[in-house]
């Protein structure tokens, strides 16, 4: 049953160990530090891709399992990791975005040692959350990925707001995770030991066992919302979203990429595997109401994005809007909607990382992000402009790109209604309301494209217009190609996602 080779462990621990080694390197060796970070993230990405392609989809379930290796035996904490159709997609997303993030950060010359060390710790934490099958391990990695964020934003962020944003982000996420942790402890104590095959009075954090723990309905009902919304803070669920635009804007480019591209999915993923998978009975009762919150995300986020003057805030609020679609996909509680939600996580991860890298490239040269001050950049940066346009088209759900495939399935999920056959008359109305988020997205994307890339070009205004380097080009081209390939051949990811969401639908269907 156990994996003969510790692939997953290596994926997580190579960046963690490399981060520690970087801290020991002499700080003058900036180039060596960057190369190390690039090589390490590349190795993890390749390993993740290797698992992705060798995973047996016909068999499904968790594969490449390692453990459980007892860690704190008296408390039932063990080291247990595994990969299924959902988290594998998240692992390759993390691999791609983290490697690209290092390439984008090549220009960081201010204390590169600490920057890349924290960046690698962050990446290790993110990988860890996605593969954990033990609740304690999951929380452990979750916190591990929040703290580097604080230092990365506060030290290397936008000087105007970085202290405020870093503090706000950390407090929000911390409070959310503590609330979720309390809920998870309640689950831990109320699980039926005998049903899980343990001695009476013995407890475990092993999620595979907890899933059989017959959690009493009263406990499920009481703790579902704290757990779901506690993690949901990181997914930007309204009204707990307002750390996110501030955090995105203040963060340095690579951190924004990781943050919006991967970290926000951490919240959605954790909410799915804990709140939904461990408390399915309560999920069936509460998700149809949580959908109201996320509808506000989708429409209000897009409307706010439309009136922003700061380029980076536009992207920040667009993430709030798009992450709303992910949770909306969860709330449909059926196969097609969940498939759409997971694909939306991947697709949004790629496109938002692309957006933030574009914003970063322009800001590094113009030192302004005010949309009215920019203009005509397609003349100077054709590749940057085209990449942004394709990303923008993907975000407004243009067919032929990955965003369409994801959003199409989420809306199909809304029409279909929950898999258990319950009928909620507001689901079709939600679909009709939420589709306006798509139209608003088209409006704000076109507004940015018209002004920033096609407006009037004033070559005398800018003094520091160095061309983008080869690494930047590679990043943009890779992201763009991924959006196109997934859009034209959704089967690349959909078969995998389908095998991962099927068990969840089974849980929610009964």
């Amino acid at each position: 049953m156990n994996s003969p080779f510790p692939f997953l462990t290596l994926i997580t621990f190579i960046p963690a160990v490399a981060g520690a080694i970087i801290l020991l390197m002499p700080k003058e060796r900036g180039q060596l530090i960057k190369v190390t970070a690039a090589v390490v993230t590349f190795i993890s990405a390749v390993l993740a891709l290797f698992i992705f392609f060798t995973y047996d989809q016909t068999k499904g379930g968790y594969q490449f399992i390692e453990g459980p290796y007892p860690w704190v035996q008296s408390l039932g904490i063990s080291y247990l990791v595994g990969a299924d159709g959902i988290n594998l997609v998240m692992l390759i997303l993390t691999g791609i975005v983290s490697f690209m993030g290092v390439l984008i950060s090549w220009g960081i010359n201010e204390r590169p040692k600490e920057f890349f060390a924290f960046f690698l710790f962050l990446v290790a934490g993110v990988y860890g959350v996605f593969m954990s099958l033990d609740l304690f391990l999951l929380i452990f990695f979750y916190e591990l990925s929040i703290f580097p964020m604080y230092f990365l934003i506060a030290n290397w962020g936008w000087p105007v707001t970085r202290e405020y944003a870093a503090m706000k982000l950390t407090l929000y996420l911390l409070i959310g995770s503590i609330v979720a942790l309390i809920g998870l402890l309640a689950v831990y104590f109320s699980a039926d030991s005998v049903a899980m095959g343990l001695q009476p009075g013995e407890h475990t954090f092993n999620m595979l066992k907890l899933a059989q723990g017959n959690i009493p309905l009263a406990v499920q009902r009481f703790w579902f919302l704290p757990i779901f919304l506690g993690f949901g803070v990181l997914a930007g669920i309204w009204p707990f979203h307002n750390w996110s635009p501030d955090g995105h804007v203040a963060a340095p480019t690579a951190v924004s990429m990781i943050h919006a591209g991967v970290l926000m999915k951490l919240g959605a993923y954790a909410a799915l595997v804990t709140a939904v998978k461990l408390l399915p009975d309560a999920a069936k009762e509460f998700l149809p109401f949580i959908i109201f919150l996320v509808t506000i995300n989708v429409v209000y986020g897009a409307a706010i994005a439309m009136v922003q003057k700061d380029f980076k805030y536009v992207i920040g609020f667009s993430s709030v809007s798009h992450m709303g679609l992910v949770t909306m996909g969860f709330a449909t509680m059926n196969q097609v909607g969940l498939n759409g939600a997971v694909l939306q996580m991947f697709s949004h991860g790629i496109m938002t990382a692309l957006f933030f890298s574009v914003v970063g490239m322009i800001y590094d040269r113009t030192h302004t992000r005010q949309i009215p001050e920019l203009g005509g950049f397609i003349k100077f940066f054709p590749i940057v402009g085209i990449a942004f346009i394709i990303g923008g088209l993907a975000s407004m759900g243009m067919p032929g790109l990955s965003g369409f495939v994801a959003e199409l399935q989420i809306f199909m999920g809304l029409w279909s209604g929950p898999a258990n056959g319950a009928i909620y008359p507001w689901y079709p109305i939600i679909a009709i309301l939420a589709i306006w988020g798509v139209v608003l997205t088209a409006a704000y994307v076109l507004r940015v494209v018209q002004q920033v890339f096609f407006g009037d070009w004033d070559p005398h205004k800018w003094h520091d217009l160095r061309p983008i380097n080869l690494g930047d080009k590679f990043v943009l081209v890779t992201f763009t190609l991924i959006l196109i390939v997934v859009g034209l051949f959704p089967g690349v990811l959909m078969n995998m996602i389908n095998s991962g969401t099927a068990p969840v639908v089974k849980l929610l269907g009964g």
Partner: protein
Amino acid sequence: MDFINNNLLTLIVFSPAIFAVLMLIIPTKDRGLKYAALIFSLITTALTIYLWIQYPAATSDPAGFKFVVNAPWFPQINSTYHVGVDGISLAMILLTGILTPLGILISFRITDRVRVYLALFLLLETGMLGVFASLDLIIFFIFWEIGLVPMYFLINVWGSKNRQYASFKFFIYTMAGSVGMLLAIQVLWFALGKTYDMNAIQAALPNFSGTLFGLPAQTIKSIAFWAFTIAFAIKVPIWPFHTWLPDAHTEAPTAGSMLLAGVLLKLGAYGFLRIVLPFFPDQAAQFSGILAILALAGIVFTALAAFGQNDFKRLVAYSSVNHMGFVVLGIAAAAASYGSTDPAVKASAVIAVNGAVLQMFAHGLSAAAMFALVGVVYDRAHTRDLNELGGLWAVMPIYGGILIFSAMANLGLPGLAGFPAEFQVVRGAWPVFTLITALSMIGLLLTGAYVLKAIQKVLHGPVNHELLHHTEMTEINWTERLALAPLMVLMLAIGLYPFWLMGVINQSVTKLIGG
């Protein structure tokens, strides 16, 4: 050869997209790029003509489509790559295949970012051809939306002064319509056994009963009917959803306007014939009166609006809405016939839709020619203000001849393409909507007035010496003549002997009406 025969439709639809990618990488300068794009688009044209020749002998599937391909594409949502053609889509594919190389010829004057321009132009062709070939609703929607993007950039980047406003309006209008259509597509998918296949949906819809989301099936059908209708009405455009069009046309580059008026507007009308009428015959019959009144309003009001324009291109743009009004009138007559069992009404409806499809083809030719001719003057005079032009026949006699020829086809002079089309629409709609059809004749009269106004203001009257002094009003050149000649030949061919086209169209229309 077998490979071409077996995949003919797929080759036609995707060849322009492949050529578009090639355009981005072939290592030549602007001039070479233009010739390359011309040759590429002619390959697609040759394939469409080959399709046209092969069509009568090809075997058809039970639903009446030929050259059908049905391959798996997205099994999780049960959507397949299902394409095929019948007489109506064949005519439209032929039209697209003919107009694209002519648009590229007209674009030989473009000097700014030629490579991207031509690539977008070819991508646009794939989008349009794909809509006409699709038999799966998701595939249909994908191509429908894909055509939007290149057109947006053609207007936004290569357009004239107010291009940003116009392109934005065009995009958001169409997008707002198409999201409604997407929701309707999904409702049908959910209501009818989770399939996107058009034939399957058409077969299943009459049996759809009971309630859905707490609403009776009839209400659901009516909502879906209006969602599709509004999406297509924006594209046609049907009055009062037309306001994006004059702006988009005025700002678009010449070749963009040619394809916009020539093919893109037909996508909406085609949607009515392929989706709205076959899927919702009862609702179509119920609401056909509204459609007919909107068609009448479009015919009369936009003819008046065209008469009031002083911008040559805006005048031609309003004339497009005016002419598409007759297409809608024909569709409304067909819609009304579903409520009747009278064979005479059915026969009239067949005539009306025959006329509508022929009008789509004929207007595609004449509108493309008119926009090309507006472009010829604008490129030389740098103004489209009718008050600044004048007396150009003396300066550009050949241009004058071509303009009069195309304008006459546009206003429906017997012997040219517009006449048999409009005649059939009016003849077919008369027994169904007598009063409305009679009133629409006012529009026909006004058409004569604004077309003559344009001719008079451009060709006759005193020469504007100041304009001649500052600009070089040279005769229409050979590239432009080459682009216009095929259009003129076809306008004459359809006007004198429409049956070479009508035979194919009639077969499919008869099947559609079920008469």
